[in-house]
């Protein structure tokens, strides 16, 4: 199972400080992503859905370290990459907190090293604990050595396709400069001819032609620009691509084209997608599994079929009821949620969804529901899963 998982996110947290006053004191935290855990298998597409402001883009950006996460572990291809982009001092601090202190504490609690390993729930951390107890000093040393080299490896393996095809391409660069930038940075080519051949090849793969190379982004339509963006990410031959609302800025016919292109590229290059979207139709089309986010937390995570057949979290049920039904005979019953999304600065106590939940009970405002597996491969964070019916 370990070998099959490409990306594993453990307890990812990203808070943005709210500063005010002359001295820029931090007066509050926007809890954009609050304790998010999930994993993505090799070659699959995981959809990350939720309404605007629920933290799905922040989660994607934090995974790629375009924002530095506040806490959490991001494991890519069996390697902890969480500390790669931290400064040396902070990386040491992170490793000490994440491994040394945690393992030592557990060792005191369970009194034996084997027990610690047994009680860790995660394959990666089990292996880490094993290595750690063998030689603690060497373990940390080895992790620190990997930091700088790991950075470029991580950048090569994980790429992003952006939401806005207009602002995601530098207006002063030609297509070949834009597409070739990654190859140059990561030294994938040795000379200019190789680079040119590589760019030509990748442009053809995304459905653009060779004579587009010397043009500027403003000479293209939105769909073509998005193809350029895809080519830019693809030239590094990445394994994971985070698509941040990659089609939401395009009109519907172009959306279908781009989604089909992504699908065929996925097969050709064995890509893994983390597809961030708010459009459930798009998610249904492309995903294998879907994570539903609400107010910085994942509330439900399961396969696409299960999610659309049998949603368990009341929020998901409400979302599903909002999908327009093209059959006029078949009137669907819509669940209208009351009120607005609460502020992520000051999220509600207990279950973050309880103020808007149609089936909320008193206990929901007190107890935080655990995100746990209810059925095989179906995780939900709700005290009364499946109680809300469509």
């Amino acid at each position, binding site marked *: 199972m370990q070998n099959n998982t490409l990306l594993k996110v453990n307890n990812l947290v990203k808070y943005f400080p709210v500063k005010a006053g002359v001295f820029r004191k931090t007066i509050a935290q926007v809890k954009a992503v609050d304790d998010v855990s999930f994993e993505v298998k090799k070659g699959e597409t995981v959809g990350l859905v939720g309404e605007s402001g629920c933290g799905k883009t922040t989660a994607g950006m934090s995974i790629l370290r375009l924002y530095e996460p506040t806490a959490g572990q991001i494991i890519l291809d069996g390697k902890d990459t969480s500390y790669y982009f931290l400064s040396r001092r902070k990386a040491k601090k992170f490793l000490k907190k994440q491994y040394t202190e945690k393992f030592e504490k557990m060792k005191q609690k369970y009194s034996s090293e084997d027990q610690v390993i047994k009680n860790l729930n995660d394959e990666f951390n089990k292996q880490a604990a094993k290595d750690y107890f063998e030689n603690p000093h060497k373990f940390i040393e080895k992790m620190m050595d990997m930091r700088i080299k790991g950075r470029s490896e991580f950048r090569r393996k994980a790429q992003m396709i952006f939401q*806005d095809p207009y602002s995601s*391409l530098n207006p002063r660069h030609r297509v070949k400069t834009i597409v070739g930038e990654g190859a140059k940075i990561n030294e994938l080519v040795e000379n200019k001819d190789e680079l040119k051949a590589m760019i030509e090849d990748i442009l053809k793969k995304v459905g653009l032609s060779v004579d587009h190379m010397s043009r500027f982004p403003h000479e293209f339509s939105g769909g073509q620009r998005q193809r350029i963006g895809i080519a830019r990410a693809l030239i*590094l031959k990445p394994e994971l691509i985070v698509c941040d609302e990659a089609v939401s800025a395009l009109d519907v016919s172009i959306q279908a084209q781009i989604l089909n292109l992504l699908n065929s590229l996925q097969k050709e290059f064995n890509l893994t997608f983390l597809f961030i979207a708010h459009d459930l139709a798009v998610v249904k089309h492309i995903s294998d599994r879907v994570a539903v986010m609400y107010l910085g937390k994942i509330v439900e995570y399961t396969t696409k079929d299960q999610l659309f057949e049998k949603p368990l979290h009341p929020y998901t049920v409400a979302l599903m009821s909002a999908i327009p039904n093209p059959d006029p005979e078949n009137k669907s019953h819509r669940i209208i949620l009351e009120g607005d999304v609460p502020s992520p600065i000051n999220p509600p106590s207990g279950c973050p969804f309880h103020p808007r939940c149609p089936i909320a009970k008193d206990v929901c405002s007190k107890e935080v529901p655990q995100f746990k597996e209810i059925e095989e491969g179906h995780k939900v964070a709700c005290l009364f899963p499946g109680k809300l019916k469509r």
Partner: protein
Amino acid sequence: MAQKISDFRKLSKKFLRNGTAILGIALLSFFIVIAIFAPFIAGENGDNPYQIPRVSWSSKPIAPTAEHPFGVIGGRDIFYGVIWGTRTAFQLGLIIASCAAVIGILIGSVSAYFGGWVDEVLMRIVDIFMSIPFLVAAIILTTILGKGLDKVMMALIVFGWMSTARLIRGNILQAREEQYVLAAKALGQKNFIIIVKHIIPNTIFPVVVQMSMRIGSYVITAAGLSFLGIGAEPGYADWGTILSYSRNWMTMLDQSWFAIVFPGTAMVLFVLAWNLVGDALRDIFDPRLRN
């Protein structure tokens, strides 16, 4: 490289088809030629060539003659003043505009880069400087500093950098949030290269364009100060100084028109040249305007 050359050719072709751009370049080259060859065109006045030679001790204007083609006012040869004044104009415009731009870019980019209270303090300073009317501030400062062209330059630099600072700050703040900057980061580009390749090209060109357009207006302002008698010293080869001689003859334009028309025309054409060049630069720098 081949690409760059063909680009240059394409650009210059388009440039040559653009009438106003050619006019701007032609005018500007005309002024440059005059400035360079000033000693051959108007002669050189002894050890201080920037002092207009006195040809008469009468303050009465003398209409253009073969010897003094632009006439004489206040005993000074206007032709000499206009020709050598071209050099002064270039000095004034280029020095003021580049110093103001350097200060503005420095303050604006520091402000945008550090943000927080640094930004807050610097922008309030900009506000304070901007709240004083430009001409009034320049007049007061030149009065305090004393006469002389260098003092005028100083005054105009001190009160001329703010708009550049604001422009570059706004541009950097905008460019920093663009997704292509994030994309470059995701590709693994180093921060320094991101600044050089992505942020600066998208922020600096508007400043260059603005700078070229303001060169002309600084010359006008300096001339205005000279006209008011608080600019260059009397007799200095400067278009504004010649104008200041005509102050007393304003009511008798039939006798003194040449003291206004010749330096005035030079000024108008100088400003026009820089504005047209600025327009052309903007078209060149922005790939979106190239078609």
